[in-house]
C-alpha cells in the first residue's frame, strides 16, 4: 500500500480527556489531604507541600529553609540518618526534597505493597526530624562546599547575579542555597526553630496518588500524619506579598558582566520582574511565552539557534510564583556573537509588543502544543501529585484542569498582544553576561551595545 506523501496526515478527532476525580479532605489536625486514584503501575506517590520555601528565609539568613528541608531525612524519631535510609532503601522508596521560593516539597514514590510503612516514615520526617548537631554540621558543610563549586558553574553564577540585581533584598532576591557567610554563621537552633514555626499541619498539604482507592489513600495519609500535633504553630505573613522595590539604578540597555577569563561560552540572562501565578493574565502569558521563547519552534529559539546558529538553545520563562516571579530569557551563546545575540533577543521582546504582534497562526500553533497534548501531563502518579501541588500552592479551583483547555482556546491574538504590552517591558530589562570579556567586547561594539558594567559574582 503506497502512502500519500503529498501532504501531512491530519490528526483525527481528539480523544476525550477527563481529569481523574480529585478528593480533598482536612484532617482534624488541620492537614490538607488530596487523593487521586491512578491504577497503572503498582506504585504509590505522595507529595508533601510545606508552605515555607526560600522566600521565608530571614533576611540575614538566606539558606535556612533549604538547610531545614535537607535535615528532614537526616534522622527522625528513634531513627538516626543511616537507620532511616536503610529502612527507606528496603522499602524501595525514592525520596526527593526540593526547596523552591514559595514552598518546600518532599516527594516519595514507593512500591504499593510498602506504601503504609513508607508513609509513616515520611510523616515522621516531616513532624519529628531530630536535628542532631552532628548531622547539622555535616549538612551545612556539604552545602558550603556546594556553594564553592557553584562559583564555577556559569548558569548558577548568572542566575544568582540576575536575581540579586532584579530583587535586591526582596525575599525572591536569593537562591535557596543561600550564601557562604550565612551558612557558616548558622546555628543548629535556627533550623530547629524554623521547623517549629513553619512546619505546622495547617500550612501543609499532602497529595497522594497511586494504585489504591481514594479511601485507602486517605487512610494511608491519616494513619501516618493524623496523630501529629505541632508544638508551636503561629501564623506567618506571606513574604510573596511584599512589594518589589526598585533595586540598583537599572538604566535600560545596560549590560552587567561577570568576568570569567577563558570561558568557552557566554551565559546570558535577560529579563525583569514578571507577574504572580494569580494574575488573571496567566493563560494569555503562558500562550504568549510559547510563541515568544517557551518552546523549540518559538521566535527566539528559531532566530538564535535555527537561523543564526549562535547557541544550542534559547528559551524564555515566566517563573510564576505566589508573588511576582522573574520573567527571563536564558541562553548560552558563542562568545564572539554575544552582543549580536543580546541585540536580537531584545529586538524580539520589542517586536512581539508592537511591529510584529502574535499572528493567528502563531496563536494556533502555540496553544495547540499545550492543549492537544494535555493528557500526557498526567501519565504517571508522580506527575499527578505535582500537578495538584500547583492547585494547593496557588489556591486554584479544583476543576482547574478541566477548565484549562477551554480557557486557552478562548484566547485571541489581541489578548496576547495586550498581555505582551502589559507584561513585557523592554525598557526595564536587566541583562547579565557571565563570560570572557576579551572575547566578547568586539561583538558589543558591532551590536551597538554600551559598555558593560562589571559586577562581582
Amino acid at each position, binding site marked *: 500500500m503506497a502512502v500519500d506523501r503529498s501532504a501531512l496526515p491530519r490528526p483525527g478527532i481528539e480523544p476525550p480527556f477527563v481529569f481523574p476525580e480529585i478528593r480533598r479532605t482536612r484532617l482534624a489536625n488541620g492537614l490538607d489531604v488530596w487523593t487521586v486514584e491512578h491504577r497503572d503501575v503498582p506504585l504509590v506517590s505522595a507529595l508533601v507541600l510545606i508552605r515555607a520555601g526560600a522566600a521565608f528565609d530571614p533576611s540575614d539568613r538566606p539558606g535556612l529553609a533549604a538547610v531545614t528541608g535537607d535535615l528532614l531525612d537526616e534522622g527522625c524519631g528513634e531513627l538516626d540518618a543511616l537507620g532511616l535510609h536503610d529502612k527507606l532503601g528496603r522499602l524501595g522508596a525514592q525520596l526527593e526534597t526540593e526547596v523552591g521560593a514559595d514552598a518546600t516539597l518532599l516527594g516519595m514514590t514507593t512500591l504499593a505493597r510498602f506504601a503504609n510503612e513508607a508513609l509513616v516514615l515520611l510523616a515522621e520526617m516531616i513532624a519529628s526530624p531530630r536535628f542532631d548537631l552532628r548531622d547539622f554540621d555535616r549538612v551545612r558543610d556539604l552545602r558550603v562546599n*556546594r556553594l564553592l563549586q557553584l562559583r564555577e558553574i556559569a548558569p548558577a553564577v548568572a542566575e544568582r547575579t540576575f536575581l540579586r540585581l532584579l530583587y535586591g533584598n526582596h525575599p525572591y532576591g536569593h537562591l535557596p542555597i543561600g550564601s557562604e557567610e550565612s551558612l557558616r554563621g548558622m546555628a543548629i537552633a535556627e533550623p530547629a526553630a524554623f521547623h517549629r514555626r513553619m512546619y505546622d499541619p495547617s500550612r501543609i498539604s499532602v497529595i497522594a496518588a497511586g494504585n489504591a482507592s481514594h479511601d485507602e489513600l486517605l487512610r494511608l495519609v491519616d494513619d501516618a500524619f493524623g496523630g501529629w500535633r505541632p508544638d508551636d504553630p503561629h501564623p506567618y505573613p506571606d513574604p510573596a506579598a511584599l512589594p518589589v522595590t526598585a533595586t540598583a539604578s537599572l538604566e535600560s540597555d545596560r549590560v552587567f558582566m561577570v568576568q570569567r577569563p577563558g570561558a568557552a561560552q557566554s*551565559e546570558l540572562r535577560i529579563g525583569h520582574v514578571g507577574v504572580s501565578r494569580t494574575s488573571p493574565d496567566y493563560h494569555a502569558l503562558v500562550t504568549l511565552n510559547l510563541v515568544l521563547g517557551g518552546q523549540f519552534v518559538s521566535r527566539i529559539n528559531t532566530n538564535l539557534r535555527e537561523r543564526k546558529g549562535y547557541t544550542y538553545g534559547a528559551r524564555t520563562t515566566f517563573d510564576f510564583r505566589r508573588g511576582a516571579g522573574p520573567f527571563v530569557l536564558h541562553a548560552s551563546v558563542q562568545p564572539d556573537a554575544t552582543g549580536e545575540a543580546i541585540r536580537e533577543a531584545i529586538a524580539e521582546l520589542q517586536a512581539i509588543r508592537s511591529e510584529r504582534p502574535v499572528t493567528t497562526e502563531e496563536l494556533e500553533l502555540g496553544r495547540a502544543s499545550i492543549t492537544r497534548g494535555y493528557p500526557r501531563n498526567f501519565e504517571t502518579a508522580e506527575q499527578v501529585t505535582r500537578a495538584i501541588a500547583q492547585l494547593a500552592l496557588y489556591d486554584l479551583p479544583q476543576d482547574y484542569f478541566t477548565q484549562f483547555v477551554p480557557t486557552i482556546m478562548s484566547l485571541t491574538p489581541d489578548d496576547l498582544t495586550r498581555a505582551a504590552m502589559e507584561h513585557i517591558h523592554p525598557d526595564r530589562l536587566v541583562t547579565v553576561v557571565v563570560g570572557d570579556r576579551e572575547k566578547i567586547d568586539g561583538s558589543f561594539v558591532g551590536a551597538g551595545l554600551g559598555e558593560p558594567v562589571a559586577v562581582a559574582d
Partner: protein
Amino acid sequence: MDIPFTHQRLDNGLDVIVHEDRGCPIVAVNVWYHVGSKNEKRGRTGFAHLFEHLMFEGSQHYDQGYFRPLQEAGGVLNGSTNADRTNYWEVMPANAVELALWMESDRMGYLLPALTVAKFENQRNVVLNERRQNYENRPYGLAGMAIAAALYPPDHPYHWMTIGAADDLKAATLDEVSAFFRTYYRPRNASLALAGDIETARAIDLAAAYFGDLEAGPEVPPVDAPTPRLDGERRVVLEDRVELPRLYIVWHSPALFAEGDAHLDLVAEVLAGGKTSRLYRRLVYERRIATEVAASQNSRESSSSFQIVATAAPGRSLLDLESAVAEELRRFVDDPPSQVEIERCRAQAEAHFVHRLQTVGGFGGKSDQLNAYNVFLGAPGFFDRDLARYTEASADDLRRACLRWLGSERVALSVVPRGRLDFALPGSEPAAVS
C-alpha cells in the same frame, strides 16, 4: 512485570514492536537506529550525533523543521545519540499517531534530497555550541573525554566521545553525511516501537503502510570493539576551572547484558547508592573527606566501564580518597554484602525498574526499553529476565564480580584546579583532551 507486546519484521528488515497501554490517550513512537559514535572512525568523530541534528531539519516531502507540525498536533519529540545507538521519539495524542509515522518514515526514506549545505553548516554551529556549553564550559566537563582516551587506544571505537572532537566536526563534509545516511539509516538497521493507546493490528498496518516501501539498505559494516587490557594503573591529570579536586577511578568491565554486568550494577549500589551505602557512609558521612561520591557500571554494547567518583572536601587530598576507596574495595571482598544490603539493593532495583515503566514514551519509557532489548538482544520481551538478573543475584555473585573486575588495572583521573597539579595523585601524566 508483564509487558505484553507483538513483534513483526517487515520484508525490508524493519522490526515493528507494539505494546498496548490504554491508561492515557497517547501513543509513543520510538525509532532506534543501531548506529552511534562507535561506528565512526578516528579523525572523523562526532558524526553520528551531528547527523541526529540534521534529522530534525526536514526531508523530501516535508522540507521544513520537524518540531512544528508534531508540536502543533500536541506531540512532544526528541532524539539522542550515544556510542551504540541513536534514538528518536514522539509522544503523540492518540489521534495523531499517523503524523509521527509519516514523518519518521519520510526521514528514514527520503532525508537526502532535502539536505543542503546551509542546514548542515547551521547545525554544525549548533553542535559546536552544544559542545562548548555542555563540555568545555562546565566544571569537570572534559573528564569523560580524558577517561575514554586513557581507557581505550586511539583507534578503538570507544576512544572518543559522542559529541566528537571540535576539529573533526569542523572538517566534516556533506558528502560524508550522505554516505553515513545510506549505510546506517535504513530499515534493516532500525527498530520501531509503538506503545500506548492504539490497537495492535492497526499499529502494525500503519507501520507497514508507512515504512514497508522503503528499501532495506546494505549490510552494516561490523564494529570491532574488544575490551582492551590495561597494564596496571594508569594515572592521568586534568586541570580545570574547578574549586575542589575530584578523583575518578575507572575499570574495564563486562558488556551490557554480559555475565557480571548486572552484578556490577549492584556492586555500585552497595558502594554508593544512597546514604547507607559503604562509600557514602565512610567518605562523606563518617570521615567527611569527600563532599560526594558516586559509583556506576556504565554498560555498553561491546565493552563497559565501571567508575567510582569522589570529590575531595576542602583541605583533603585525592590520596586520602584513593586509599579510602581501596580500603572499601578490599572490605567488599573480605566482608561481602550482608543480607540487609542485598535486600536494599533488590528493592531499589525493582523500584527503579517499575519506575521507568510508568511512561509509554520518552527516554527510558516502555517503547524505548522494548527497542533497547530488541536492538541489543533481539528479545523485546526481556523485561522479566532483566529484572531477574538483579533479584536473583547473591552476595557471592557481587563479591566475585568485584574480585574479577575491580583490580589494579585501571585508570585514575585527577581533576584539579588550574595551577594545582600538585593536588593530583603522584605520577599522573597530562590527560589527552581536545
